[in-house]
């Protein structure tokens, strides 16, 4: 990545004070810890993780809907400081967020024209309003841009008259109304019927080809591989592996990424091998010491239990936060497995 990242997280951390639940009062939920990630302009970057991995919190930090506990977000190389509604509005002109639930994110009492017209008016560029009908022409253009044609017909429809895919298109149109430079899509297809998912991904892909930078937040590795150039895998609030999409899927370096891949349904195999690692992700209130994955990791040794691993480069633009990739001599017992892993990761270079 030579160009200045369009969006960047530096040591970004978000802790929440836990609510009044049983045994939770006064405790701290460490949702995102020391995340550093650079998003290249014009790229699609996928953030992949299970529920509770911190991926949605990271998306909201990027969108400035949460203030970070520490660390910072940079937009085009400059630190973002959102302190007022006005500065948030200015930032939102560049960075937009769409959410998972196309049922919950549209006002059921308003025709979708109204929903899309709001941001056109709030962020009005004089062109959009001059174009006619107090912004109506612009809304029709946006609806047609996301495949809701003819836009004039959809303008006066209500959310309940649309399919899930069409509703998600409305929320994309609403985000596009401000002509943003970055679109963060948090699980945009996971609530849609299978036959509608590809349509929405295709639309996002078209928008990306037209220059929009996209951060695709998902739990689904296959669609991340298909759609994104870069994949960042999150576990327990940290990025544990990052690299070119093909490299992460075909030559995973972190044991957790391997576990995710092994668990992903693959129609080409029958009755797959048993999973090597079992168990469930840790509570973000009681994170284990050392590497958060160590209680489930088949390769864990003493060092993993004590020290959180830094990020190690495993190939060009490909890194993993795992002691197995420490180039210094590893502890005796992990030597064999570490060598095995290295063999997996040395035979590829660069972005496919």
């Amino acid at each position: 990545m030579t160009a200045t990242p369009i969006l960047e997280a530096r040591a970004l951390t978000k802790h929440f004070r836990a609510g009044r639940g049983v045994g939770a009062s006064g405790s701290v939920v460490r949702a995102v810890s020391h995340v550093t990630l650079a998003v290249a302009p014009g790229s699609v970057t996928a953030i992949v993780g299970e529920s509770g991995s911190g991926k949605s919190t990271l998306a909201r930090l990027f969108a400035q809907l949460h203030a970070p506990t520490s660390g910072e977000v940079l937009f085009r190389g400059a630190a973002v400081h959102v302190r007022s509604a006005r500065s948030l509005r200015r930032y939102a002109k560049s960075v937009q967020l769409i959410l998972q639930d196309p049922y919950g994110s549209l006002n059921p009492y308003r025709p979708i024209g109204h929903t899309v017209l709001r941001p056109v008016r709030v962020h009005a560029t004089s062109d959009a309003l001059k174009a006619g009908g107090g912004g109506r022409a612009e809304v029709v253009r946006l609806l047609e841009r996301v495949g809701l044609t003819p836009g004039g017909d959809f303008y006066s429809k209500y959310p309940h008259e649309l399919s899930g895919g069409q509703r998600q298109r409305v929320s994309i149109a609403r985000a596009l109304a401000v002509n943003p430079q970055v679109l963060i899509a948090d699980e945009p297809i996971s609530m849609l019927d299978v036959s509608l998912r590809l349509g929405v991904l295709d639309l996002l892909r078209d928008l990306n080809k037209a220059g929009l930078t996209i951060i695709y937040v998902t739990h689904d590795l296959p669609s991340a591989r298909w759609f994104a150039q870069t994949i960042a895998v999150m576990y327990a609030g940290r990025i544990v592996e990052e690299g070119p999409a093909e490299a992460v899927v075909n030559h995973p370096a972190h044991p957790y990424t391997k576990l995710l891949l092994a668990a992903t349904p693959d129609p080409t195999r029958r009755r797959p091998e048993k999973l090597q690692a079992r168990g469930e992700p840790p509570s973000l209130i009681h994170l284990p010491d050392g590497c958060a994955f160590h209680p489930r990791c088949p390769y864990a040794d003493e060092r993993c239990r004590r020290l959180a691993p830094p990020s190690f480069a495993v190939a060009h633009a490909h890194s993993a936060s795992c002691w197995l990739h420490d180039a210094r001599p590893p502890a005796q017992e992990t030597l064999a497995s570490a060598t095995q892993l290295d063999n997996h990761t040395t035979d590829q270079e660069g972005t496919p």
Partner: protein
Amino acid sequence: MSEAVLDIEELVVEFGSGPTAVRAVDGVSLSIGRGEIFGLAGESGSGKSTLMYAITRLLPPAGHVVSGRVVYRPRTGEPVDFLGLEGRALQELRWASMAIVTQAAMNALNPVLDVEAQLTDVLRAHGVGENRNARHERAAELLSIVGITADRLRSYPHQLSGGMRQRVMIAMSLALSPDVLILDEPTTALDVVTQRQILEEILEIRERLDLSIVFVTHDLALLFEIADRVAVMYAGELIEVGDAVGLRDAPLHPYSLALRASFPTLTTAPDALSRLPGAPPDLRALPGGCPFHPRCDFRDVVCEARRPRLIAMGDDPEHEVACHLHDTSVMMTRPASVVAANEARR
């Protein structure tokens, strides 16, 4: 397929009545073999869940069976039409013959009772175990089948993760050793690693307890991995039924073909996907003829006029499809590849 444990015959289910009635299941016939894993795939509104609720006699009010039979064939004794049972007879047979676990099942646990109380409640209601100790033992055994240690009997639902709660529900469904276990999207709300662990346990349960599993999901990739046979449902009808490997490698119905090409897998080539046009149909306003025709690339006039029936394909009596393309008695324009395949099959 092995000997049938369950025969569903021409089942029709409607919601409401009169001219506004919505037909959610439209003439479904299906046999579940003893010991097999049968996968039922379909999108929302395809009628897959309604079909499962109908055969377990759990349809919500307004839903009712219009016609058809659900014949349960126990290991010993006479076949029973499940739909004809009432009162005590139904109570005795349900759960002991067929048990069901739904997607939201894990939210059905009582938050103020511990796991043991809820498991032993089922046992006591059905007269399993002569005393408290025996029921405790059985509850612990049921948990161990789904990979949970006995110390969790003392846990309350909020102390368990979603995956654990869903396992408790599966354990509960096994309480009376049913012949058929129906799992309706049991892992859809769970993370992929948890899903895989539960699938492994389900495969083990099938081996150990020799029961049949009906696995309902929208996730075709998952069914191709674990099911013996797969059926695809669309707009209340079965549109294709066959061996999982056969259906994966050579699907016949254009909808099955399109579904397979509509989601990326870990090995999909960048341009190998093609999206299905349109959206799943509204059951209140189904198109005439074949319900899939508005979205079908191969449609002809006949598809708009006549509804195709589910018929067996040539040499493989177990591979059935409801599509005029493959019914050589129907006159229509077909792509050359389909004509050649039909010729070869005859």
